[in-house]
């Protein structure tokens, strides 16, 4: 039978948006993002750090921080473990990563494992305060900081980007794909009082970086 390529489905796709007009919080799905977990092999941390520097021009962060170069980013999610991401959506990312560092680290494709949202808006911090047990004060949680935590019963990994043009904070959050709906409910009801808007693409009214 015909070998028509499989089509991807976005985890947040089709999730209803609660009737809460306004722009306090704006979100857009990061459907395109390619993701892979990287766990360094025993005793290879120095070698891996050098390899990543050489191949991607990224200084592998030892702690919970995210470093970006071009399309690729490495976010520390655990001791000796990172969530690597690539903007250009290809199922090949994990594979190319494997080829680049597979001898020094175990690489696992997670492009489908997580549902990722970019979030911004003047009321974002107030909204996230209802969800995350983290201190997101601008002086405490800086751009490039990463945190794995629990977002009212849903495991989540959060990182901060540079503030948007309008001065609003910008965060991205990754939750397990199967939990997208539950997280969405929690986010939407927490943002409702401030107004909650969804953008279909990053370009449409979302800070692009």
């Amino acid at each position, binding site marked *: 039978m015909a070998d028509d390529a499989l089509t991807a489905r976005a985890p947040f796709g089709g999730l209803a948006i609660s009737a809460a007009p306004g722009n306090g919080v704006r979100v857009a799905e990061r459907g395109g993002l390619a993701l892979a977990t990287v766990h360094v092999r025993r*005793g*290879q941390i120095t070698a891996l750090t050098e390899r990543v520097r050489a191949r991607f021009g990224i200084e592998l962060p030892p702690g*919970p921080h995210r470093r970006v170069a071009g399309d690729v980013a490495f976010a520390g999610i*655990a*001791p*000796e473990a990172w969530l690597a991401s690539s903007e250009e959506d290809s199922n090949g990312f994990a594979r190319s990563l494997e080829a680049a560092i597979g001898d020094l680290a175990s690489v696992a494709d997670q492009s489908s494992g997580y549902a990722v949202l970019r979030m911004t808006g003047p009321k974002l911090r107030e909204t996230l305060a209802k969800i995350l047990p983290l201190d997101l004060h601008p002086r405490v949680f800086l751009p490039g900081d990463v945190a*794995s935590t629990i977002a009212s019963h849903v495991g989540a990994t959060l990182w901060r980007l540079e503030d948007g043009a309008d001065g609003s904070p910008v965060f991205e959050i990754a939750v397990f794909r199967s939990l997208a709906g539950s997280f969405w409910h929690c986010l939407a009801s927490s943002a409702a009082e401030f107004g909650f808007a969804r953008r279909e693409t990053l370009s449409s009214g979302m800070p692009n970086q």
Partner: protein
Amino acid sequence: MRIQCPYCGERDLSEFAYHGDAAFRRPDPDAPDAAARFFEALYLRENPAGPHEELWYHASGCRSWLRVTRNTRTHEILAVSFPKPSASA
């Protein structure tokens, strides 16, 4: 209660899962008295009232297992570290 994860920083109790006394070591399975030693290691607890070395799992964080010294009378956290110097160090 808040636990200082060496990787994530100080986090709320709700992110962690408790395992128990950190003293547990797997005895030598081939020792003649292995059965008795395994029984003691798995079942007997000092269960002190005061400082207690215990294992916690940062289940909703970095998934590290942590060795926490905590006072069981006051819940005061006295020290937190990884169970062993990290594998690749």
